[in-house]
C-alpha cells in the first residue's frame, strides 16, 4: 500500500503544557485509520497540525513522499487533505452549493457557476442525497444533514485524505450507515481516511487499522482484527478497565417523581406520556429529529409552544417556564455544553455556584467564603480536582465540563429531576464511565433522571426504563430485562415494519 501521508517526531506545546510529543504516523493509500484516545490525548492537536490550523513546534510532515509545510487550511486543501471537523465548518447563511465551494482553492475569482453546480451535484449524488436543493440554505438543515454537506464538500474538491473528527456524534443511525457506506466506497477508490471517534463500535466496523493516542503520545497502531474492545479501551486509558456501566440498584419503593401526560410540541412531539420514578433512569430513545430531545426540553420549560400536563410529586409543573422548573429542582443539561450549559471563560468555581448565588448573598452581598466552601464540596462530590477551581471552564476536558453541570444540580434541599440530552456526547471512554457512576449515585440519592441518547449501547447499558420514539410519536416502553438493543433499534428506525411482523 503506497504511503500517502507520514509524520515524523511531531511535537506541540501550549504555554508550557505538552499537547503532542514525538508523534510518528503513516497512512497508506486506500486505508481507513481509526484514531482513539481520551479527551486531551492529543488527537485534535494532531489533526489541527495536519490541516495547518496549528503549527507544530517540531517534526516533519510528508505528503505523497514530499516533505511539506502546511501554513493554513487552504494550503492543506491544495495538498489533498480535507477535514470534517467536530464543530462543523459550514456557514449557515449560505446555500449548500456555496458552502461546498466555500474557500476552495480550485475556485477562481470569476468562475463558471454551472460547472461548479454540476460537480457539487455529483458529490451529493454519491452520498445518496442527490434530491437536495443546492440553493437551500444550510441553516435550515439538521446537524446530520450538515455533516453530509461537509463530506460532499470533500468529495467535490477531490480530497485524497479525508479526516473526520467525531463525524457521527450528532447523526441518526440511518445517517451513520450512509456515511460509513460512503467511506467504504471512497476506500475502494483508493482514497484514505482518518477516522476519529469515541464510538468504538464504528472503529471496529469501519477501520482497517487503529492508532491510539494517550497523553500526547502515539502509544500503538494495530490492525483492528488484532485488538479487542477491552484491549483498545485499556490502551486508551493506560490502565486496566473497570466495568463501564455500574450495576442497576433495585429500588422497589421508587415513587413517581415526574409524570408526563399527553405532552405535545407542535410539529415535533405528539401525545407523549411517560413516568420517571425517583432512583431510576428513564431514557427516551430516538433518532435525531424523532422528538426525543424535545421531550426533555419541553419538560424543562424551554419550549413555550408545548402543551400537555406535567406533575412533579403530584403537583402541577408549569410548561414553558424555566424559572418555575428550576424553583422545583427540575434541571436541564443540554447536549450543547459550550453554548447552553457552561460559562466557558469563567472559572470552575464560578460555574459550580452560578445557580445558587442568591442563596448565599445575605443583603445582596455575595459570601465568597460560603460559595468557595460549597464549590470545593461539589467539586469533590462530582470528581473534579479541587485544585482546578480557579481554572477557566473552557480549559477542562469534556468529561470534567459535564461533571460541573452535574455539580450545579447537587446540594439541594431535596433531590430533584435531571433532564439530560446526550449526557456523554464528545466525552471519552474513561470519563464516560465516571459520568455513568455519577448518574447512579444521583439515583441512589433519590433523583429522577430522564435522558435522551442517540448512542444505543449507552441506552441499553445505563437505562432502567426506555421509551422509544419515531417521528414524534411513542413506539413502545421497555423496563428491566426487556430492554434490548435489537428491539430499540427496530423501534426507532422502522417501527411500522416491526409492527407488521
Amino acid at each position, binding site marked *: 500500500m503506497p504511503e500517502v501521508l507520514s509524520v515524523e517526531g511531531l511535537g506541540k506545546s501550549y504555554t508550557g503544557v505538552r499537547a503532542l510529543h514525538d508523534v510518528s504516523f503513516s497512512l497508506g493509500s486506500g486505508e481507513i485509520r481509526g484514531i482513539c484516545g481520551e479527551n486531551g490525548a492529543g488527537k485534535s492537536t494532531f489533526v489541527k497540525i495536519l490541516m495547518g490550523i496549528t503549527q507544530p513546534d517540531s517534526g516533519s510532515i510528508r505528503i505523497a513522499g514530499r516533505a511539506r509545510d502546511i501554513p493554513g487550511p487552504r494550503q492543506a486543501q491544495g495538498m489533498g487533505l480535507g477535514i470534517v471537523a467536530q*464543530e*462543523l*465548518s459550514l*456557514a449557515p447563511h449560505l446555500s449548500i452549493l456555496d458552502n461546498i465551494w*466555500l474557500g476552495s482553492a480550485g*475556485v477562481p475569482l*470569476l468562475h463558471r457557476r454551472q460547472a461548479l453546480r454540476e460537480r457539487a451535484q455529483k458529490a451529493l449524488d454519491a452520498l445518496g442525497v442527490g434530491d437536495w436543493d443546492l440553493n437551500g440554505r444550510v441553516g435550515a438543515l439538521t446537524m446530520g444533514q450538515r455533516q453530509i454537506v461537509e463530506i460532499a*464538500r470533500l468529495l467535490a474538491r477531490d480530497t485524497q485524505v479525508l479526516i473526520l473528527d467525531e463525524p457521527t456524534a450528532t447523526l441518526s443511525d440511518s445517517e451513520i450507515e450512509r456515511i460509513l457506506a460512503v467511506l467504504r466506497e471512497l476506500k475502494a477508490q483508493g482514497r484514505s481516511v482518518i477516522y476519529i471517534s469515541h464510538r468504538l463500535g464504528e472503529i471496529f466496523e469501519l477501520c482497517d487499522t487503529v492508532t491510539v493516542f494517550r497523553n500526547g503520545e502515539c502509544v500503538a497502531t494495530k490492525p483492528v482484527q488484532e485488538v479487542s474492545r477491552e484491549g483498545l479501551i485499556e490502551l486508551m486509558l493506560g490502565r486496566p478497565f473497570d466495568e463501564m456501566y455500574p450495576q442497576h440498584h433495585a429500588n422497589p419503593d421508587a415513587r413517581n417523581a415526574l409524570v408526563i401526560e399527553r405532552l405535545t410540541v407542535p410539529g415535533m412531539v405528539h401525545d407523549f406520556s411517560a413516568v420517571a420514578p425517583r432512583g431510576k433512569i428513564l431514557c427516551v430513545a430516538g433518532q435525531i429529529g424523532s422528538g426525543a430531545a424535545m421531550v426533555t426540553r419541553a419538560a424543562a420549560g424551554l419550549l413555550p409552544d408545548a402543551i400537555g400536563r406535567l406533575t412533579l410529586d403530584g403537583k402541577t409543573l408549569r410548561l414553558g417556564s424555566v424559572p418555575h422548573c428550576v424553583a422545583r429542582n427540575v434541571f436541564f443539561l443540554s447536549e450543547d455544553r459550550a453554548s447552553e450549559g457552561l460559562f466557558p471563560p469563567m472559572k470552575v468555581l464560578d460555574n459550580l455556584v452560578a445557580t445558587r448565588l442568591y442563596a448565599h448573598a445575605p443583603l445582596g452581598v455575595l459570601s465568597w467564603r460560603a460559595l468557595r466552601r460549597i464549590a470545593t464540596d461539589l467539586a469533590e462530590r462530582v470528581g473534579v480536582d479541587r485544585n482546578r477551581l480557579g481554572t477557566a471552564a473552557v480549559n477542562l476536558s469534556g468529561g470534567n465540563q459535564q461533571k460541573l453541570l452535574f455539580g450545579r444540580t447537587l446540594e439541594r434541599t431535596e433531590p430533584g429531576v435531571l433532564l439530560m440530552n446526550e449526557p456523554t456526547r464528545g466525552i471519552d471512554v474513561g470519563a464516560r464511565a465516571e459520568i455513568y457512576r455519577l448518574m447512579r449515585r444521583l439515583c441512589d440519592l433519590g433523583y429522577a433522571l430522564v435522558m435522551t441518547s442517540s448512542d444505543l449501547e449507552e441506552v441499553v447499558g445505563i437505562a432502567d426504563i426506555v421509551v422509544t420514539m419515531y417521528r414524534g410519536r411513542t413506539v413502545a416502553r421497555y423496563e428491566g430485562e426487556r430492554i434490548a438493543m435489537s428491539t430499540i433499534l427496530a423501534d426507532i428506525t422502522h417501527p411500522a415494519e416491526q409492527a407488521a411482523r
Partner: protein
Amino acid sequence: MKASIRNDPHFRPLVILAACIVLLSAVDWGQWRFLSAATPFSTLQTFANIGLVALGLGLTMMIREFDLSVVGMFGLAGCVAVMTGAAHPWFGIACAIAIGLAAGIIQGLIMVRFALGSVGVTLGGLLTFVGLAHVLTENRSVPYDNFRVALLVNEPFAGLLSVRSGVSLAIFAVVALTFGFTRLGRDIIAIGSDRRAAMIAGVNVDAFIVGIFAFSGVCAAATGALLSYSLASASPAGLSDVLVPAAAAAILGGVSLGGGSGRPLGIATGALVLAVLRSGLNAVEAPPFVNDIAMGAILLTVAIGDGPYLMRRLRQLAARERTDR
C-alpha cells in the same frame, strides 16, 4: 407571493422604500411638492452624503464587526482634501483616500495581529482621527477657495445626478457586481455567518478583515472629501452626524449586527429610504425632528419584524385559523 421573492435579501428594503414613497405621495397629494422634478435630485444628493459610508460600515457589519472610525475619518479626510486640494483637486482627493486606506489597513492589522474586537480598535481610531483633524486645522474651519470645483461637484447633469451622487452610484454598482458574481461576496457572508467555519473551509479570514476595514476607510474618506469640496469648507467637528444614518441605512438594507446577512444593493436601498425620507419631509415642509421620529419608527418596526417572537405569534395565529376552518 413566491417564497423565493419573499426570501430575496433585497425584497424587504424595496418594500420599505416603496412604502415611504407611497406614504409621502399621499401626504403631498395634489400639492406637487414631493412629487416634483427637484425631489429625485435632492434625494440622490442626500444619498451621496451617507451611501458610501453606509456601504463600508455595512460590509464591516456583515463580517460581524463594526467600524466606528468612519465618523472620524469622514471629518479628517474632508479637512485633508480641502487643505491639499485647492490648486489640484485630484491631489486633495488622492491624499484623503490614501489616509482612509492607510487608516483602515492599520486598524485591520491591529485587530488581526492582536486578536482584538473592532469596537475598541475603531473607537480608538475615531478619537485619533478627530484629534488629528483638530491638530491639522488648528481647531478652526478651513475654507475651500476653489469655487469652480465646489460648484462642479454639485452641478446637476441629466437633471438627476451630480458628480457626488454619480460616484456613489458607480461604486455601489461595482461592489454589487463583485459581490454577486465573484467568490468574494460568499466569502464575506461566510465570515459573518461563522468565522471559524470559514477559516477551516479555506477562506483567508484575516485578509478579508483588513481589506474590508481598508475599504470602509476609503469610502468614508472619499465621501468626506467630496462633501467638503461641495460645501467649500471643512471643519474638524462639522461632519460628525454620519454614523447613525449610515448604520440605520445598513440595517434597513438587511444587514444584521449579528453578521452573515445583507447585500450591497440592499444597503443602497436602505440609504435611499433615508434619503427619500429626508428630501420628502423637507419638501412637504415637515419640521426637522419629524425626520428623526420617522427614521426611528421605521427602524423599530424592522427590528420587531426581524425578531423571532412576532413571527412565531403570527405563525401560531395562522395555524389556529387553519384549524378553526
